C-alpha cells in the first residue's frame, strides 16, 4: 500500500514538526511497516521555479522548425532579478503564461544537467519544462504535447519553487501491510493509526451525514445474506463522461500505484483508497432490472472487465440482473455493464462481502484485484453507506452529475462479538507490567468499546475482566490474544523486557544427530566437500543413470506444481544431482571433485492413503495422528558420494592419481569403521555402476547401498572424467547398525607372531572370501589379518592369482609356542584350501 503523506495528513492533524521519518517510525512500531519512502521529485535537483513569460519571439529556422526565443521573469531565482533568456521549442503557451523553469545548475530525471548554452543564435539559460521532462505523466497539468502551463490563478509568484504545486515534493510512503490488517489498505486506516501514535485528532472520512435509506433507489435483492451482509446502491444522472479527472486526484491515484482511467472509474478507486471500501460503478442504462446477489449456477458464464470469459462455480457469489450475472461480486465487474465514454447515469454499488468467499473466488479464477485484496481481508462493513455517499458526492462535484433520489440499503452491519479477557492477561502474556487502566485506554485507542467487570472470585480474590467489543473495521480481532496484541501494540513492543526462561533439563543431541556430525566430519576429513543439492529430478535423470524401466527408483513422489516441467519429481536417489554437481565443478576447471551430500530421499509408500485434514478445535486422536504420519512417503536419510577426476594431486612428490572404484569403497569402509559397523563388501551389479566394479555394501546381511566405479555410459552422459566413482547408501540404516556401546579389545603385551601366507586361487574368487576363510581357520589366536599383495604371472596362469596375507597371531595370556603358531597357520590355510580351492604358493 502506497500513501502520499499529504493525503494521510488530510485525516490526521499531525503537528507540522512531525517528519515523514518520525511518522513512518511510529507506524512501523504500530504494525504498518515502512517499505520505502519515495518522492516523484527525488530525481530533480536545483532550482525549478515558477516563471512568467514576458516576451516570446517566434524564429523560423533553416531546418523548417520554429523556435521561441523567450524572456521569462523568474523573480530573484537567477540571482539577478533580470529576465531570463530561454529558447523553447513548444508552442502551447504565450506571453503572460506561468510556466515551470529549470535554471542552470538544475538536474532533471535521467541525470539531465541544465546549463546556459548557445543554441539557435541565443544563449539559452535554462529550460521551460514539459510534464514528461519532470518525470510526470505526459498529460499531467494539461501538458500533453507541450510544456506545462500553470493555472493563471496560481498563487505562486515567479521565482518561487514550483515543486509543491506539481506534487513533486510529495513524499509517498509504501507500507507492507500484513494480511490481518485490512484497515492498512486505506488512507482512513493509516491515518487512524497515525492519530493513535501521536495522540493527534483524527477526522474519519466515513464520518458523514448520510441520507436515510428508502425504497426509492435501484432495487436490490440479496439472496445470500451470509455472503453479502450489506448492500448499498445509489445512482447519479447527468454525469458528463467527457469530464476529466482533476490533476490532484490523478496524481494521488498514481502515487498510490493505480493508473487513472476515466473520471467515473477514478472516483470509485479514489474512494476505495480513501475508505478501504471497494466500490463498483455500473453504467445504469446497461443494467436490466433489479440487482440480485446470489451464488452462480454451475456452468454460468461471465466475461469480466479484464476481457476474460469465465465459467462460474456454484460457490462464486455473483451480482446478476435480468440478463444473468453481470459481475463477480467483490472481485471484478462484468463487461456488459461496464462504464464507458458514453455513460451518463452511474449505478454505484458499495457492498460488504464475506471474506472467505472472496478469497475462494479470487483463487479459483486467479484474479488479484485491488478490490478483491480488500474484500478477502475484510473491509469495514460499516463503511458501505458513507463510501457510496462519497462517490456520489465526487461524481456530482467533478462530473456535473446529480444524485438521484433513493438510497438502497439492504442488510445491516453485523455487530462484532464481544471478547472477554482477564484484565491482567496482557501483562501476563507480554511479561511486562500493564495496569488495567493502560490496557483499557489502549483498547479504546484502537476503537474497541471496553467494559470493565470487577468480580470477586470464589476464593475472595478480586478479578477484573475486560469485555471489549472490537470496532467494525477490525474483523481480525476475534480472540483474547488479539486483544493482547492490540494492547501491546499501543504500549509498545519495545517495552517488552528481556528475560531468559528457566533452564530446561534437555537430554542433549540425539544419537542420530551426534552420529550425523561424526559422519560429516569423517567424510570432510577424507578430503570430501559437502554440497547441498535440490531434490528435484525428472525421468530423464534416471535415463542418464541407465536405470531399467522397472527400476523401483523410477517411482517417485511427483509434484503437482513443479517449478520446472523437466524436474517434476522428488528424487529417490541423491546421485543424479550429485553427479551434476561434480560435473559442474569439472566444467568450471576443477581437476577433480570429491563431493558428498546427506539428504533425505522420498520413497512412495505402497497403498498410503491421503493425509486427512482434521478439525483444529481439538487434538486429533493418537490413531488419527498415526494416520497422518503413515500417509507420508518413507524419507530415509541417504549419503551420496561422487569422486571424479583427480583424487591425489601430482606434485614434486610424484604422479597424481585419479579417483577410481577403490576410492568409493574406501569411503564406505572408512565410514563403517568410524561408526563401528561391520561392513561386508560384496560384488554386485546395479545401475549406474560399472557391472564389474560395483560393490553392494551389506550390514548384517542387508544391503544398505552400493559403491564403485560408474558405468562408462553414465560417466559420458554426465560429462565426468573417466573412471569417476560413486557411493550411495542408506545412512539411517548404517547409523542404526552402529553399536550402542563399544567393546574395546584386551591388549596383549606378549610377543606377536607374524606369519605370511601366499595363496593361489582362481581369478574369480573374491579376496574377502579367502580372507574370511583364513580368519576363521586361524581361530582365536589370530589378532589381525591383512591382504598385502595381489600377484599374477604367466607361471600362475591367466585365470589364477596369488593373494599374500600377513597374519598376526597372539594370545592374551602367554607367549605362543612354535607349534601353536604353526597350528593356527595350517588351520587357516587348510580352510582356505577347502573353501576357496586355495593352494600355497
Amino acid at each position: 500500500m502506497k500513501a502520499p503523506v499529504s493525503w494521510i495528513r488530510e485525516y490526521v492533524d499531525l503537528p507540522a514538526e512531525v517528519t515523514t521519518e518520525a511518522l513512518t517510525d511510529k507506524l512501523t512500531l504500530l504494525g504498518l511497516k515502512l517499505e520505502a519512502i519515495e518522492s516523484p521529485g527525488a530525481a530533480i535537483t536545483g532550482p525549478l521555479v515558477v516563471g512568467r513569460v514576458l516576451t516570446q519571439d517566434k524564429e523560423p529556422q533553416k531546418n523548417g522548425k520554429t523556435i521561441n526565443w523567450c524572456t521569462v521573469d523568474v523573480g530573484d531565482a537567477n540571482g539577478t532579478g533580470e529576465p531570463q533568456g530561454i529558447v523553447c521549442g513548444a508552442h502551447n503557451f504565450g506571453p503572460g503564461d506561468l510556466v515551470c523553469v529549470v535554471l542552470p545548475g538544475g538536474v532533471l530525471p535521467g541525470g539531465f544537467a541544465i546549463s546556459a548554452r548557445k543554441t539557435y543564435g541565443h544563449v539559452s539559460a535554462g529550460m521551460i519544462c514539459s510534464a514528461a521532462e519532470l518525470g510526470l505523466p505526459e498529460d499531467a497539468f494539461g501538458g500533453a504535447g507541450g510544456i506545462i502551463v500553470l493555472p493563471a490563478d496560481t498563487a505562486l509568484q515567479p521565482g518561487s519553487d514550483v515543486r509543491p504545486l506539481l506534487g513533486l515534493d510529495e513524499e509517498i510512503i509504501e507500507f507492507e501491510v500484513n494480511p490481518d490488517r485490512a484497515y492498512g489498505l486505506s488512507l482512513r486506516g493509516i491515518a487512524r493509526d497515525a492519530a493513535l501514535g501521536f495522540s493527534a485528532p483524527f477526522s474519519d472520512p466515513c464520518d458523514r451525514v448520510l441520507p436515510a435509506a428508502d425504497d426509492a433507489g435501484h432495487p436490490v435483492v440479496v439472496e445470500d445474506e451470509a455472503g453479502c451482509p450489506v448492500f448499498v446502491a445509489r445512482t447519479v444522472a447527468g454525469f458528463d463522461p467527457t469530464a476529466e479527472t482533476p490533476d490532484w486526484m490523478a496524481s494521488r491515484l498514481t502515487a498510490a500505484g493505480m493508473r487513472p482511467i476515466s473520471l467515473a472509474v477514478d472516483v470509485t478507486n479514489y474512494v476505495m483508497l480513501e475508505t478501504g471500501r471497494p466500490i463498483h460503478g455500473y453504467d445504469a442504462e446497461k443494467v436490466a432490472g433489479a440487482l440480485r446477489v446470489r451464488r452462480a449456477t454451475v456452468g454460468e458464464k461471465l466475461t469480466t472487465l479484464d476481457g476474460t470469459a469465465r465459467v462460474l462455480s456454484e460457490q462464486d457469489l455473483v451480482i446478476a440482473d435480468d440478463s444473468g450475472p453481470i459481475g463477480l461480486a467483490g472481485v471484478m465487474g462484468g463487461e456488459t455493464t461496464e462504464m464507458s465514454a458514453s455513460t451518463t447515469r452511474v449505478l454505484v454499488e458499495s457492498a460488504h462481502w464475506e471474506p472467505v468467499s472472496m478469497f475462494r473466488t479470487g483463487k479459483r479464477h486467479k484474479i488479484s484485484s485491488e478490490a478483491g485484496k480488500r474484500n478477502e481481508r475484510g473491509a469495514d462493513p460499516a463503511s458501505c453507506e458513507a463510501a457510496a455517499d462519497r462517490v456520489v458526492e465526487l461524481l456530482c462535484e467533478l462530473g456535473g452529475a446529480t444524485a438521484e433520489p433513493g438510497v438502497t440499503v439492504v442488510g445491516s452491519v453485523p455487530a462484532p462479538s464481544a471478547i472477554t479477557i482477564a484484565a491482567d492477561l496482557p501483562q501476563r502474556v507480554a511479561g511486562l507490567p500493564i495496569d488495567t487502566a493502560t490496557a483499557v485506554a489502549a483498547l479504546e485507542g484502537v476503537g474497541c468499546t471496553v467494559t470493565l467487570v470487577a468480580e470477586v472470585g470464589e476464593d475472595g480474590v478480586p478479578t477484573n475482566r475486560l469485555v471489549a467489543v472490537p470496532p467494525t473495521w477490525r474483523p481480525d480481532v476475534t480472540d483474547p490474544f488479539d486483544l493482547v496484541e492490540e494492547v501491546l501494540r499501543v504500549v509498545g513492543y519495545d517495552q517488552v523486557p528481556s528475560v531468559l526462561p528457566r533452564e530446561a533439563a534437555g537430554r542433549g543431541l540425539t544419537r542420530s544427530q551426534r552420529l550425523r556430525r561424526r559422519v560429516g566430519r569423517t567424510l570432510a576429513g577424507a578430503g570430501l566437500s559437502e554440497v547441498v543439492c535440490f531434490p528435484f529430478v525428472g525421468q530423464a535423470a534416471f535415463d542418464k543413470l541407465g536405470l531399467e524401466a522397472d527400476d523401483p527408483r523410477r517411482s517417485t513422489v511427483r509434484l503437482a506444481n513443479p517449478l520446472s516441467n523437466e524436474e517434476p519429481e522428488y528424487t529417490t536417489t541423491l546421485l543424479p544431482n550429485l553427479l551434476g554437481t561434480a560435473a559442474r565443478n569439472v566444467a568450471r576447471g576443477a581437476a577433480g571433485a570429491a563431493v558428498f551430500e546427506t539428504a533425505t530421499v522420498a520413497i512412495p509408500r505402497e497403498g498410503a492413503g491421503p493425509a486427512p485434514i482434521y478439525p483444529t478445535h481439538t487434538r486429533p486422536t493418537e490413531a488419527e495422528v498415526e494416520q497422518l504420519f503413515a500417509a507420508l512417503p518413507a524419507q530415509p536419510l541417504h549419503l551420496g558420494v561422487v569422486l571424479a577426476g583427480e583424487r591425489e594431486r601430482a606434485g614434486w612428490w610424484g604422479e597424481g592419481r585419479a579417483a577410481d572404484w577403490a576410492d568409493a569403497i574406501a569411503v564406505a569402509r572408512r565410514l563403517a569403521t568410524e561408526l563401528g559397523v561391520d561392513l561386508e563388501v560384496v560384488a554386485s551389479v546395479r545401475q549406474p555402476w560399472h557391472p564389474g566394479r560395483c560393490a553392494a555394501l551389506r550390514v548384517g546381511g542387508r544391503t544398505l547401498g552400493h559403491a564403485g566405479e560408474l558405468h562408462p555410459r553414465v560417466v559420458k552422459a554426465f560429462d565426468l572424467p573417466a573412471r569417476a566413482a560413486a557411493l550411495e547408501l542408506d545412512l539411517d540404516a548404517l547409523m542404526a547398525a552402529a553399536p550402542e556401546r563399544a567393546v574395546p579389545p584386551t591388549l596383549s603385551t606378549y610377543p606377536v607372531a607374524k606369519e605370511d601366507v601366499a595363496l593361489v586361487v582362481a581369478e574369480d574368487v573374491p579376496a574377502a572370501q579367502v580372507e574370511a576363510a583364513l580368519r576363521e581357520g586361524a581361530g582365536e589366536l589370530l589378532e589381525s589379518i591383512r591382504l598385502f599383495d595381489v600377484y599374477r604371472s604367466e607361471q600362475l596362469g591367466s585365470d589364477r592369482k596369488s593373494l599374500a596375507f600377513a597374519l598376526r597371531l597372539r594370545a592374551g595370556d602367554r607367549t605362543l609356542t612354535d607349534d601353536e603358531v604353526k597350528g593356527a597357520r595350517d588351520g587357516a590355510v587348510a580352510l582356505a584350501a577347502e573353501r576357496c580351492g586355495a593352494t600355497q604358493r
Partner: protein
Amino acid sequence: MSGPNTEYDPVEVTPLQAEEVEAARDAALAAIAGASDLEALKQVRLDHAGDRSPLALANREIGALPPQARKEAGQRVGQARGAVNKALAARTEVLEAEHEERMLIEETVDVTLPTDRVPTGGRHPLTTGAELIADIFVSMGWEIAEGPLIEAEWLNFDALNLGPDHPARTMQDTFWTEPAENHVVLRTQTSPVQARTMLTRKPPIYVACPGRVFRTDEYDATHSPMFHQVEGLVVDEGISMAHLKGTLDHFAARMFGEGIDTRFRPSYFPFTEPSAEVDLRCFVCRGVDSDACRTCRGEGWIEWGGCGVVNPRVLVACGVDPETYTGFAFGMGIDRSLMFRHGITDLRSFFEGDVRFTPAFGTEL
C-alpha cells in the same frame, strides 16, 4: 690365538715396559685426536683399542708375569687403556655432534613446498551453521527436534491456525505432491515440527528445529525454491513475550557477538498472537554511524525473522491446555543469517556445490 706366554722371562716382556705402554698410549691418543670423522675414528678404535691393538696385546701378556710384577704392569696397562677409552668416548661424542650437525644441515628441505597431495574436504556452512545454532540451544538445555520434508498439509498449515481459506496461505507458495487431494506438501516452513513436537510430547517443551523448507520461488540471487530455517518452540507454565525476547537476545549474542540484541515490531503470523518481526542489531556498525554500513544499509538493524506468543488455537489443535500453558515460537532463515553474517551476496552460492566454496568456512562455523 695363543694363551699367555709363560715361557718368557717376565723381565724380557717388551710390550709391558713402561716406555712401550706409554708410546702405545700416546700413539692411540694422537690417532684419536687425528680422526676427522666417525668413520676414521672407527678404524682408530680397531687399531688402538681393538683386540689386536698394542695395548690389548700388552694386557694379554700380564698373566705371564710373575705375580709380584703383575700388579704394576696391570696398573700401567690399565691406566693407558683407560686413557685411550676415555679419549675415544670424548672424541666420539664430539664427532657425533659434528656429524649430527652436518647431517641436519644436509637434510634441510624447502618447507614451503606444497603438501596438498590429497585435496582438502569441508563440511557445508549450512550444516555447520545449523550445528552452531543447535549447540547454542542445547547449551541452554533445549533439544533439537526434526521432522520430514514431505509433510502432511494439516501439520504444515491447519494445525498452525492456517485454515484452508487463510489469506496467509497465499504468502507461502507451496509445492503440492500428486494427487493434491492426498493433502501432502513439501513443508513450507519448519513450523510443522512444532505441531509434531506438541502432538508427541508433553510440556514443558524447549526445542529448536533447524531444517530444510521449500517454496515455489524462482531461483535467483535472493530466492531459492529450497532454503533453511530454524524454528524455536517453548511451551511451559508462565511463558511470556519477555522470555521470547530474552531467548532471542541470547541467541543473537551467541551467534553474532556479545552485545548484539534484538528489536520487536508488530507483525502477523497465524500461529502466533501477539506476533512480531524480530530485527537484529547490526553486528557490523552496531547502530553507530550506520549510514555507510553495507550490512544493514544504514538501518542499524537487520531483519532477522518472525516470532510471537504461540496462538492458543495452535495449542488446542495440538492437545496442549491453553489455560495451563503458554508458549513462544520464533523462526528465522539460516541461509539468510549466514549470508549477512559472512557477507555472501548470492544465495545460489550455497546450492551450486562448488568445491571452492566450503573450505572457506573451515573452522569458523
